[in-house]
Each structure stands twice: as C-alpha cells, then as structure tokens.
C-alpha cells in the first residue's frame, strides 16, 4: 500500500476517534497509562541508577565495606523466635582498622561510624536542630561527591587528638547560624561544645546523606559522643571501609581481610563469619535485584493499561467495521485487495493507540520532569523507554485490531455493498 494509503488511514482513524468518543477515549486512556507507567518507572530507575553508580564510582571500584549488617533486604515481623543476627554479632573495635591496614593486599583501612539514624539534638544559642553524626576518617572527603564550601575539612592531627571540631552541612549551618557565617562558631551536642570549622555542601545525589548532619573526625566522636541510648553504644556503629591495593586483584584483598577479621574476632575454624563484606559487586547485585522487582511492577502496571487499551481497540474496531461495511464494499469494488483493507483498519487501530502512546509520553515526560525538579528522586528518561513505549502502543493497536481488521478484509464485496 502506498504512503498515501497510510496517511488516509490515519485521517480516517482520527475522524473515528472523534465519532466514538467514549470507547476511543477509554482506549486512548488505557494505552496512555500503560505508556506513562513505562516512562516514569524507567526514568526513575535510570535516574536512581545514575546516582547509584556515581556514588560507587566516587568511592572507587577497589573499595569495600565491612559491616555487622547482613546483606539482603530483610523484613522483620517482630514475631521471629530468634533475635536478628545483627544483635548477636558483637560490636567491632576501632583498632581492627589498624590491623587490617597492615595487610599487604590492603592500601588503606578506615573505621567510621554513621549515627545518622540516631538523631541527636544540636544547639547554638537559642537555635536547635536534630542532626545525624557522621564520624569519618580524614581521608573520607576524597571519596565523597560533596565539597567543603566554607572553612575547611579536619586534619589528621585533629583526628588523632580528638579535638572537638565539626564540619556542618549547609542546611544545618543555615538553620543554626543564618544570616551569620557558621565557621568559627560553637555548637553543643549533648554536654560537649564543638567548634564549626567548615561547611559542607552535599552533592545533588539521591544517596547522599540527607537532612541535617555534621561530620566529625572519627577520633573526636570516639572521645566525645555518647549515644544516650540503653541499647547502643558508640562502638555498635563502628564499621570499616577498605581500599584494596590497586595493583592486586580485589578478591585477594577480600580473602586477606576475611582471614584477618576472623582472627581479630577470635572465631574458631568452622564457625560462621560474624561480619559481612560488602563489595561493590555485591551491592550492585542487591541493587539489581531491587530494580528487577521494580521492573516487574512496571511491566504488570503497563500491561494492565495496554490490556484496557486493547479491549478498547477491539470494541472500537468491531463497531467501525460494522458501521463501514458498505464503505468496505465500495473500496473492494474500486479494486482494494484484502491486504489494502486489512492495512487500512490496522493503520486505524495503530493510530488510535499511537495517539494514546503520544499522550502517555507527554504526560509521563511531564511527571518525570516534575519528579526531577521538585523531589530528590533523580529521574531521566532513557531513550529506549520512548521507543519501547511507542512500540508497545502501536503493537497493542495492531495485535488487538487484527481480528476486526481481518474480518473487514474478508467481507464479500457484493454482500458488503448491499449492507444497510
């Protein structure tokens, strides 16, 4: 069939859309929702992925973590007989870092403690704010995406001697000190006063620490921070990050670290590790399992939308074929082949769902834009999702339109011409 035929089919389809408002509207809506869901979820996954790989890249591929948490996403119901593994695992001791650091396959090993979820009160004059404390080694700043925009980061000397200094994030600085500069001022956390030496600007990354927080040298936190909780001591939050020797295989460093940790933890042979090594591969693997689940949700939701659209296509096309039986007869009398008629109705069906697809793309694009603009969720539309969405929309029209279109194409010309 000529291009003109397609153009004509599109025109007829648009007229039919106007004439069967409810059925066609439902079709368009169903397809639009299907397409919209694909767009938005794909864009969110893409955006979150970008953030995620950015963070991992900043940390460096040879970096891995040692934690007491078990890997995986565990759902606790509170009804478990046994207490979670985490609580049975003894706290790490900060000195382990030095022992790990001495391994030949390890370039550096650091202890750190992120107390973010234990929100603590910080005061400056009459202002107060809930903050999370992030006790980080001096080297940490290098592997972080944020930067110190006022004042400075802390020094090795301050870490070693446990000087009460902090670097506050910019939102905390604003909350406590605006309009005055924060650097040089004092804030009180618990009974201890800390001097603000710098202001940290977090990166625009979903996985960057959010809310109000302060960085302080790990040594400082060890010396001055009490959790104020009956259940956790500061030591309970100690974890390690290890930078493997870049010239060696990562697995060699992991093996060495596991061996050394078992010695440090005094585990007997055959006893299970009571610590977890989180390599980037493992983190990525967990992450991919999570996004796979999201993808499944996406496919389910968009299929539901496309099914609604598909049923609508059948309804609209069956009516269209019946209403236009005589037209089909005329076209056949004028020399249209079965294939011409089939084409005409398939183009119509695909046009209808295509309109839904375009509406879904535009609406989805708007939602994605709004997400990226007004929420911390990074979202960017991957190109493939646009093609996938339009393809799905067009295919829905063709697949569901096929049976009515076939029926139209097989009509007997004489009978069709006589149809009232």
């Amino acid at each position, binding site marked *: 069939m000529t291009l003109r035929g397609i153009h004509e089919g599109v025109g007829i389809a648009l007229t039919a859309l106007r004439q069967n408002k409810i059925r066609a509207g439902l079709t368009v809506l169903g397809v639009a929702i299907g397409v919209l869901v694909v767009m938005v979820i794909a864009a969110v996954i893409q955006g979150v992925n970008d953030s995620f790989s950015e963070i991992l890249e900043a940390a460096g591929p040879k970096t891995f973590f040692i934690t007491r948490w078990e890997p995986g996403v565990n759902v606790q119901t509170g009804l478990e007989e046994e207490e979670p593994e985490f609580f049975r695992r003894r706290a790490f001791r900060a000195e382990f870092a030095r022992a790990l650091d001495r391994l030949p396959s390890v370039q550096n090993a650091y202890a750190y403690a992120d107390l973010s979820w234990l929100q603590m009160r910080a005061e400056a004059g009459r202002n107060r704010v809930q903050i999370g404390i992030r006790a980080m080694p001096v080297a940490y700043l290098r592997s972080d995406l944020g930067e110190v925009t006022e004042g400075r980061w802390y020094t090795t000397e301050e870490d070693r001697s446990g000087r009460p200094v902090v670097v506050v994030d910019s939102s905390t600085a604003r909350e406590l000190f605006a309009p005055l500069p924060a650097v040089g001022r004092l804030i009180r956390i618990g009974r201890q006063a800390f001097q603000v030496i710098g202001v940290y600007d977090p990166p625009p990354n979903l996985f960057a620490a959010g809310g109000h927080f302060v960085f302080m040298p790990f040594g400082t936190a060890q010396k001055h921070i009490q959790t104020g909780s009956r259940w956790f001591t500061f030591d309970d939050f100690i974890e390690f990050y290890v930078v493997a020797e870049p010239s060696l295989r990562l697995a060699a460093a992991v093996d060495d670290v596991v061996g050394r940790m078992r010695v440090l933890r005094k585990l007997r042979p055959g006893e299970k590790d009571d610590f977890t090594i989180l390599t980037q591969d493992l983190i990525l693997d967990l992450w991919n399992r999570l996004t796979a689940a999201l993808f499944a949700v996406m496919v389910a939701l968009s299929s539901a939308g496309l099914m609604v659209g598909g049923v609508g296509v059948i309804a609209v096309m069956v009516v269209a074929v019946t209403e236009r039986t005589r037209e089909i007869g005329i076209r056949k009398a004028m*020399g249209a082949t079965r294939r011409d008629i089939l084409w005409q109705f398939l183009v119509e069906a695909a046009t209808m769902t295509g309109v839904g697809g375009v509406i879904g793309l535009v609406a989805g694009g708007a939602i994605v834009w709004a997400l990226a603009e007004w929420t911390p969720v990074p979202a960017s539309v991957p190109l493939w999702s646009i093609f996938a969405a339009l393809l799905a929309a067009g295919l829905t029209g063709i697949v569901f339109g096929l049976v009515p279109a076939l029926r139209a194409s097989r009509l007997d*010309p004489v009978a069709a011409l006589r149809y009232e």
Partner: protein
Amino acid sequence: MTPPNDKIILTEALTKDYELGAETVHALRGVDLVVERNEYVAIMGPSGSGKSTLLNLIGCLDTPTGGRYWLNRQEVSRLDDAELARIRNREVGFVFQTFNLLPRATALHNVELPLIYAGVPAKERRERSAVALEAVGLADRMHHRPNELSGGERQRVATARALVNNPSILLADEPTGNLDSTTSAEIMGLFDELHAKGQTILLVTHERDIAAHAHRAIQLRDGRIERDERRALAEAIR
C-alpha cells in the same frame, strides 16, 4: 482457448447458485454471452431474473459457481481474490443505483479511489480525477461532499469514478433507478456520449426508454437469456 481480440466479454454456460439454508437458489442457469468492443448493451428482465448477479460476475465482484468467463481474453473465472481486485481496478468501472460514494469524502477524493488502489502517485491522481470530473461537467463541484450534491450530480461523480482508470467495460446496475426522469435523461445522455467515444457499456434496467439508448437488449428470465436483440429491435422497443 483464447477468444478473439474484439470479444471483450465471453461467457460459457455461466451459472451462479446461492445456498439459502437447505435451499439452493439458481440465480443463473447457464449464460452464454459475447460482447464485443464498443457495444452498448441493456440487460433487462423481471425482478429476480438474475440481472444484478450477471453484472456482478461480469464485473468480477463475484465468482461463478460454474461455467467459464473471459474478460479481455483473460480467463477470470478462476482467479484468486487479489487478481480479481486487480481486474476490478483496471478493467471494470462500476456505476450503482445507490451511487455508493464515500459519504465523508469529497467528489475529488471519491474519484481518486480507484487510482489509489492502482498505486498512481498523488499528484497525477488528483490531476486525472479533476479531468474526469470536468468530463462529466462537475469541474465546479470537486470539493463538495456527496450530501452537498444532487442525485444526478452524485451519479455523475460515480460515473467519473468508474471511468477514471480507463476501464475496458463500464457496468451500470440501474443507474437511473434513484433519479427523476429529467436527471435520468441527463445521465443517459452522458452514457451515450461515452459510447460514442468508444466505451463499451453494459447497463441493467427494467425501463424500456432507458434500454432504448442501448444498441442491443438482452432479456433475462429465470437465470437464462430469453432474448438477445440487436439495434433493430432495440429501436422497435422505443
């Protein structure tokens, strides 16, 4: 067997049965018919005698139950659907009693229809359709839709459409059946002109004064040719 050049239509024992439930309707019971180039034939007969059935078979809108049929020296009685569509497109021009125009399309677009299926490029299509509409005196009605045209004008659009692809035969099934006598005369005048220019025409009618325009009258009765008379008799009917 290939019929000689000047025999445009040649049928041999053509039959058409319709199954109506358990009953079989014998619409045509063996029609032998030869039509030569530039003949002007009226097919007459009482209602139900098989006139439309015969015309539909000749126009390849339908396929016979039995017998053989050559159109323009090509045996078409056993062609498949796509080939029949091609023949309808290139060899046959149809004019119907009820006009059968696409209601939402302009006169011009209606006339373009056969050219679309012939794969003629858009520009040439529009030019040829405009020429065809001019030839039937509708140059100023090209962009009107059927409901904006009178019955006679609609039938002239249909005639332009039938002729736009230069078919070998023009088939008209009671073309004046829905028209008043003045308009009928107009359309028949148009047909006479076309015949004078060399067009082969087969025309179904049950009106004698319409049939009188033709040079040959075929009487059908019960699916058989009862009489087949040339000009002399056609004139006598008048």
